[in-house]
């Protein structure tokens, strides 16, 4: 082995490890390695003194750290209060919903069975959406649309619900009453 190869073991020896017999024998005949070991041992001694140096008290530097802790704790409290307030609002809203009387049920869809299909139009498909519009319709308009009506005064107006399909066309009507404007 060369001196360079012994150096690793010499460093460990200098740090306090037990040397091997081979190393001790080498050292006895190698002044350079002996000096290297002396330096390492001296280094360890001063390092031990460095480790023993006093350091300042933690309390001396605590103020900014604790101030940061307090600041975070305060903002956390504000956050919690904010969440509590939001929770209270949500709870109040839920309670209001709970105690409010239910809205009336939406009107049921018209019973198309009572409607008279408009002549010459395609009837509504079963699932087709339509709206019901109540309007006053002159009898003359109904006759023009193809309804077979007994001869009456064309000035008479019929109030009826008109079933209007999505394309805007009247598909059926449900007469409600006859208004005589005369």
């Amino acid at each position, binding site marked *: 082995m060369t001196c360079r190869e012994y*150096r*690793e073991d010499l*460093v460990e020896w*200098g*740090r306090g490890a037990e040397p091997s017999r081979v190393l001790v024998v080498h050292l006895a005949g190698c002044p350079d390695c002996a000096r*290297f070991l002396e*330096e*390492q041992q*001296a*280094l*360890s001694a*001063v*390092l031990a*003194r*460095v*480790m023993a*140096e*006093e*350091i*300042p008290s*933690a*309390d001396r*530097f*605590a103020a*900014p*750290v*604790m101030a*940061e*802790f*307090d600041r*975070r*704790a305060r903002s*956390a409290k504000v956050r919690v209060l904010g969440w509590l307030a939001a929770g209270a609002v949500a709870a109040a809203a839920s309670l209001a919903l709970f105690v409010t009387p239910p809205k009336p049920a939406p009107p049921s869809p018209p019973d198309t069975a009572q409607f008279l299909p408009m002549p010459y139009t395609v009837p509504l498909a079963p699932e087709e959406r339509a709206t019901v519009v109540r309007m006053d319709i002159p009898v003359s308009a109904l006759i023009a649309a193809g309804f077979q009506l007994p001869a009456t005064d064309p000035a008479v107006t019929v109030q009826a619900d008109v079933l209007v399909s999505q394309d805007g066309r009247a598909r059926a009507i449900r007469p409600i009453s006859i208004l005589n404007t005369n």
Partner: protein
Amino acid sequence: MSHLVERFREGDREAFATLYREHFPAVFRFALYMTGDRVRAAEITQDAFVWLVRHPGEYDPARGDLGAFLGGVARKFLHRQERTERRWLPLDESAADRADFTAGVERDQEAAELRRAIATLPERYREALVLCDLQGKSYEEAAAALGCANGTVKSRLHRARALLACKFQRRREGQKCV
């Protein structure tokens, strides 16, 4: 200890103060040995604890003790500071010699001189020396802290000691370190 950490996370001031007092010496020493400067060591130590306050959920007790975690945080702050300093002022031997030691009269001039010499070592050697020889960590613990192999720590430590012995011993004897 994990109980204290839990209480600290729940906002218990006294628990945090206890953790701070308990871990301050190790973090301060690590920063002091790495910088060779008490003022900078105090700053790094405060930065590490303030970071902990701001990121209480980052520490996972299952992955190691709080001391090692804080050492890692301090190390990151040191790297950041040294990167900034390198940009403006290379940290050579003369710069370290000019370092402002505010401790006043050093009780042990030789130890202070060695501390300054340590501060001039390349960072990777300095870290190995500080962790193993000044903080008493095993090669395994130092390797875990530095994120490298045990053998790497050992070779860096040996290189650090060889450099230090050269710089420190021979300079005192008025010899050039070759």
